[in-house]
């Protein structure tokens, strides 16, 4: 699904963010990526949907490799990978339903199918009654659910989540995590970056990867 082989990433100003990291997220897995801030979690997440390319080594995402795919063809990967951010990144001034239908629209879903499918996605994340609300009228937890519905719109193979609960209170966090587990139970791989070890401990079934100073220092599957 996502495979990093001897990947290093060096920034012109910031030095090395990752050094010789190899990891493999397999089909249907639930993986936590942990580490302190600056350990390389976000870089790994960005490499995983090819928002960035590695300085050396190879990144392979759903069959596409980093040294072959062009910038113009990235949309092929993006339709197979769903992405959820800490700050939601919803389009302001639009409703929850519009934020989800937007994805379906830009990826060429037939017009008559867009609204019913968007509604189904919102139902899946438990937001049916808020479909018509503008995003700024929603709570943080609700906004993150809209973001998750949006990430699921393309029926991706893998869901990437970068600190998705970072801005949420405990209750909202639990709701979002339950949703991720539910999604994972249906066969979708989930790779979630978090620095919250307390949260990680609550889900002992998940695989845990730990980064420190740009190196992979722990993998529960190997332990």
């Amino acid at each position, binding site marked *: 699904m996502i495979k990093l082989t001897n990947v290093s990433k060096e920034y012109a100003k910031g030095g090395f963010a990752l050094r010789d990291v190899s990891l493999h997220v397999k089909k249907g897995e639930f993986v936590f990526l942990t580490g302190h801030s600056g350990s390389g979690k976000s870089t790994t997440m960005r490499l995983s949907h090819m*928002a960035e390319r590695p300085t050396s080594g190879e990144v392979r995402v759903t069959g596409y490799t980093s040294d072959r795919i062009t910038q113009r063809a990235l*949309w*092929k990967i*993006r*339709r197979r990978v769903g992405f959820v951010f800490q700050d939601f990144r919803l*389009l302001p001034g639009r409703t929850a339903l519009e934020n989800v239908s937007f994805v379906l*629209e*830009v990826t060429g879903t037939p017009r008559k199918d867009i609204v019913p499918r968007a509604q189904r996605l919102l139902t899946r994340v438990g937001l049916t009654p808020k479909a018509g609300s503008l995003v700024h009228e929603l709570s943080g937890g609700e906004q993150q659910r809209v973001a998750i519905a949006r990430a699921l719109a393309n029926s991706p193979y893998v869901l990437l989540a970068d600190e998705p609960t970072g801005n949420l209170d405990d209750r909202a966090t639990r709701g979002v995590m339950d949703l991720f587990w539910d999604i994972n139970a249906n066969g979708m791989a989930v790779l979630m970056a978090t620095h919250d070890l307390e949260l990680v401990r609550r889900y002992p079934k998940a695989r845990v990867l730990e980064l420190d100073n740009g190196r992979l220092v722990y993998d529960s599957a190997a332990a």
Partner: protein
Amino acid sequence: MYAIREALAAFRRAPVLTGLASAMVGLALYVIGLLGLATYNLQQALSTIEDRVQIAVYLRDDTRQSEIDLAQAELGEIPEVRAVRFISKREALELAREELPEFSALFSDLEVNPLPQSLEVELIPGERSQEVVERISAAALRYPFVEDARYGREWVDRLFALRRIGAATTFAMGSAFAVVAALIIGTALRIAIFARREEIYVMRLVGATNGFIRRPFLLEGALSGLLGGGLAWLMTWATYRGVYAFLFQLAWIPPTWIFAGLASGAFFGAIASALAIGRHLRQV
């Protein structure tokens, strides 16, 4: 379809920003509109003067009618010549009396008519250049019975010099203003697109193709340009009315010019958008 809907929605969602972009485009094109108005009127004025460019071929008094007919026919066959009119001595005197009333007493006391008979050579519009005038005068002077051929050399020289200066000035100022307008339009649309970078980012992230992302922005740019062009048209029209009512008579620019202005507004808008969006498409 999506592109059209999104382009229109952009105006609805951020009316101030898109309105501001259109206003900036409008002001930039307004300057070009004023230049167009001035150029067109200068051109009109020059061509009115140019209409009067004709050649007077003076004939000896003893020229025979058959010779006059021959010269009239031969000069009339030159492609640039529209008509050749014969003016007899008597007609010349009558014309002189009409056109110079202050000397009418002098003309009526004459015992002998001192004015020569002549052929008045009128040229086809657009062929009244210095070179043509000189060539036809030279041809007329080759007849032995022709005394002189006049076209007001200095006057024609000056007219054509003025025309050349006018064309050069218009070209230089037009190019400079067009560059300024293009930069302003580019900046205005860059700001409008910058405000929507998040949307572009999300589109890239969820797998929209570059062409799909670009289309509504191109259309929006073209629409801003078109609106700006319309605004410039209105402002130029208002200026024209103002000048016409309070300063002096002016001619309004022809519809083809207006159409070209609107089309170039739309074109500049689309190009500026395409350039501005390229940077954002490379980011994620």
